């Protein structure tokens, strides 16, 4: 290589280095803007959470979970609210998951692809964005008056189930779509029927995604207030629903489904609307608890997704 060729390479290299330095300034700039944007959202939420925890701090003890609501703020507790929330969530889970997963599977695997299924697809996605109070109104007409379920746990559970149904359907479909065609073809090629392909492979490999969608739906449902108020949930309840487990055969009873109830966000709303400041401390504590529960549920969703997907590589 001649010396002038070498010189030209080196000169060129200097120009390249100058250009890279220039480009990297944009890199840095965006990194900074991005960090500020992230902090803006994160810090606001964190401040809110810390504020709730600090306000509600005096109530963080076991008593708070085992006491019924009371006229005296100091001895008022969450017992009926968290038991109500848990039972309502149970009904929601048991209805939304089978119906949502089955609907998602049918739409994705069985339904013919035409303008009608496109229309359904658009509507399902649209339903996920409908304001929750509309579901409350629907439930009031259908479950409370139509089916005479009353202002019960069953009604609330079904309402919230309906509310998260689109979330479950959409996440099921998305999880299913992530499975490569080659895997399906491999199963068909050994002579499997559609149902065998779906049950042995499609459902199994998309479990992680489906579960994530279910949990995210549930964590949305647990904080919902508007539809529950619409169907007429009580705000002051000093009793527990009958236990689902009984000591005589068949050891399970369903009376609790018919019971009146309250849930965490409604209890919080109730305390918040009182003039006495002492109740506001209870409300703050409840708010912090709802956030922690939601956080735990979403954390579980992320963990499960990671754990299930770890063994699957496309």
């Amino acid at each position, binding site marked *: *290589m001649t010396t002038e*060729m070498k010189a030209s390479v080196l000169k060129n290299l200097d120009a*390249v280095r100058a250009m890279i330095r220039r480009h990297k300034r944009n890199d840095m700039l965006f990194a900074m803007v991005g960090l500020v944007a992230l902090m803006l959202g994160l810090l606001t939420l964190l401040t809110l959470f810390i504020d709730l925890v600090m306000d509600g701090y005096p109530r963080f003890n076991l008593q708070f979970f085992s006491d019924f609501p009371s006229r005296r703020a100091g001895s008022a507790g969450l017992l009926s609210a968290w038991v109500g929330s848990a039972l309502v969530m149970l009904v929601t889970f048991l209805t939304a998951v089978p119906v949502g997963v089955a609907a998602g599977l049918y739409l994705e695997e069985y339904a013919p692809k035409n303008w009608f299924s496109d229309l359904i697809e658009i509507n399902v996605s649209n339903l996920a964005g409908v304001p929750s109070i509309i579901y409350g109104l629907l439930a009031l007409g259908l479950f409370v008056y139509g089916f005479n379920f009353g202002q019960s746990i069953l009604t609330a559970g079904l309402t919230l189930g309906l509310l998260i149904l689109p979330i479950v359907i959409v996440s099921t479909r998305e999880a299913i779509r992530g499975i490569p065609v080659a895997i399906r073809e491999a199963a068909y090629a050994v002579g499997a029927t559609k149902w065998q392909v779906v049950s042995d492979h499609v459902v199994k490999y998309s479990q992680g995604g489906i579960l994530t969608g279910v949990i995210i739906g549930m964590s949305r449902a647990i904080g919902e207030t508007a539809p529950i108020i619409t169907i007429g949930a009580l705000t002051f309840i000093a009793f527990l629903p009958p236990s689902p487990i009984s000591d005589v055969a068949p050891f399970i009873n369903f009376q609790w489904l018919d019971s009146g109830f309250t849930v965490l966000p409604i209890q919080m709303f109730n305390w918040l609307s009182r003039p006495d400041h002492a109740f506001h401390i209870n409300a703050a504590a409840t708010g912090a608890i709802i956030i922690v529960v939601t956080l735990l549920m979403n954390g579980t969703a992320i963990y499960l997704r990671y754990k299930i997907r770890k063994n699957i590589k496309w």
Partner: protein
Amino acid sequence: MVNITTPIKAEARDLNFFYSNGNQALKSINMPLYEKKITALIGPSGCGKSTFLRCFNRMHDLYPGNKYQGQIVMHPDNTNILEAGVDPIEVRMRISMVFQKPNPFPKTIYENVAYGLRVRDEKNKRTLDDKVEEALKGAALWNEVKDRLQDLAFNLSGGQQQRLCIARALATDPEIMLFDEPTSALDPIATANIEELMSELKEKLTILVVTHNMQQAARVSDYTAYMYLGELMEYGDTNQIFTRPTRKETEDYITGKFG
């Protein structure tokens, strides 16, 4: 059998490489790349060929925890491209790469080829047009696409897509071009086209190619390196490696007794 009159474009000196999980994928590799020659890397799967190739454009820097030891020195400027002070972007501006599967962007044919130039701040329409045409001609694709440069790249066949990726890598006048099993996803005719193209490209630049196909290494390369378990077992003139390998392991692999 090393030809001492051919200048060296780049050389690995005592190169070790560790993946983030602690695996040592390359073990003290010493190897030259001769200027305007094709060097082929052969060896069984998982022996470190692709890992070695990807050291040359610092692809491993994209994933945290990977570690290089030793040097890859580029001539004539004697830059050790693995040095911490050397920007990987600078390295990639000098050394381009073609991947195993064709990976065109979901953009037009023209924009695919022009992207490397745009990254380098080239805005002049005339210059872009000229360079795109030149690169597509260099990649033997111009005649097939000159009337539809604004078509989406995905509408091309697999072989055409791979030549488009070569044109994209070529448009920026690289000093070295890396090929990571460039024909393993292609049919025999497309493969023959790419091989012919590589032979033409070495008029202008230095090529390092990973291949699983022994005949391909024999057909296109000037020098061949046989790697096994992260080590460079044998390196030399392609004719010599294929006709008179000095090591038993190399002979076994080439003749298909092993691997």
